[in-house]
């Protein structure tokens, strides 16, 4: 009972700030009902959210963003994983690839937006390419360090069994690094979403980022804030979903 009350009390204090903020914004909006281009009452934002979700526009934009972020994520994930495995297994290969890889790593992914635009034009392909580039690096590093973290005994066992390289990778290495690869995938999903939205805001007329830009340019702050909330909610629920799956599948191993 006491613990429950304490938890309720905690919730109450955490809610004070958002409630005060929302209420005061609502009151300011009521007190001065002038149209503003950077400001909308929370009730108007909620109404705009319901409107855009009901009309299907937000869902269409969401699917565009998720398709590009997802394809870029899968592409980058595959490349990063396939590249990271040999570098994790063989020290020499890793040392040899150090300079070429380290010279690509500091390039911010958004620097590729103009180049990708030049090559692919507007559309899915250019965004997928930028997302993939952004994801490869982190996946690559996390795969490599996951392989380095495999227990040496496991690798000795595989040697004692006389497994070939392919059998060693599929039977020992991949199962051993699976939990950490799943974590890497979840982190990469966050990166992919951010980069996809960034590309849409900066250049590509697709998806939620573009929808937000249009809402801003057509002076619909209520719709703009509704979309901002929706983007946050989408990212948040995808992350929560993968976190759930992670603890279900791997428990403490991850």
């Amino acid at each position, binding site marked *: 009972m006491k613990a429950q009350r304490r938890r309720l009390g905690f919730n109450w204090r955490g809610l004070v700030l958002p409630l005060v903020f929302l209420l005061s914004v609502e009151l300011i909006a009521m007190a001065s009902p002038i149209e503003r281009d950077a400001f909308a009452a929370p009730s108007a934002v909620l109404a705009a959210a319901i409107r855009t979700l009901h009309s299907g526009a937000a869902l269409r934009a969401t699917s565009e963003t998720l398709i590009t972020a997802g394809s870029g994520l899968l592409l980058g994930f595959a490349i990063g994983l396939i590249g990271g495995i040999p570098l994790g297994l063989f020290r020499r290969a890793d040392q040899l690839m150090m300079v070429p890889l380290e010279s690509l790593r500091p390039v911010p992914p958004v620097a590729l937006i103009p180049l990708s635009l030049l090559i692919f034009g507007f559309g899915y392909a250019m965004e997928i390419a930028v997302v993939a580039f952004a994801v490869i690096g982190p996946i690559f590093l996390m795969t490599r360090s996951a392989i380095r973290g495999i227990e040496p005994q496991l690798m000795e066992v595989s040697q004692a069994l006389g497994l070939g390289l392919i059998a060693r990778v599929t039977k020992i290495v991949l199962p051993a690094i699976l939990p950490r690869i799943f974590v890497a995938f979840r982190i990469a999903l966050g990166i992919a979403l951010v980069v996809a939205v*960034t590309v849409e*805001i900066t250049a590509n007329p697709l998806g939620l980022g573009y929808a937000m830009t249009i809402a801003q340019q057509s002076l619909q702050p209520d719709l703009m804030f509704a979309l901002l909330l929706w983007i946050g909610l989408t990212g948040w629920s995808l992350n929560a979903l993968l976190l759930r799956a992670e603890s279900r599948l791997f428990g403490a191993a991850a």
Partner: protein
Amino acid sequence: MSRRERLFWTLASVGLAVLIVMAVAKISEMRLVPPVFLPPPQRIWAALMKGLTTGNLAQMFLATIWHMAIGLSLAACLGVGLGAMIGTSAKARAYLMPTLEFLRPFPSSAIIPVTIAFFGLTETMMLAVIAFGSLWPILMATIHGFVTVEPRLKDVSRALGLSRRSAMMKIALPHAMPDILAGMRIGLVMALVLATVGEMLTGRNGLGQALLLAARSFRTADLYAGIILLGVIGFASMLIFDRVERWLLRWRS
């Protein structure tokens, strides 16, 4: 591994990089890829040198560094200041943490349209985006650093009769420093990304704008030169950061 061996492998790695560049040159020369997408490396190098000496690439380079530095400094001051306040007060945490945890996973670039609505396509908008984006990792890491100060260290500071201020400066801040620096490292990466995006959107001076203009007029060699310079900024800032980190944490070793 001996020092000599390491030197050998580093040289071998440099050699491989040179080979890759030569292969790209060959591909470009044979026109396997349209030269407008992949100009020969020597032309990129020429564009880079020309841009830095006679063109305005050097100016753009400095402008991007400037935007990054200002935005990151704002984020660092706010993040460490607020983080220290929130991290040392259980009351502040009770009120603020749920909101912060709720806002944390928001993609920071999604606030760009909002800041445009507030500030227009101005320098202020760009700095606000950079500062906001790099604020989050610094703020959250700082809070974590201050929360995890060992209770026994707090007892020590009380036994020594330290004032709140000097307990903060002498015990809590050094303890939180590794966390703060880890947050700043992420903030640094964010700052470069958001500076580039901000320059592309606002058309203010900087490499982001230079890249976009080069792509629009199909000057691909200039485009690659700009990308290389952004990579140089990323690399150099990490290098400087490593140095600063080692100096600030020298008491640990």
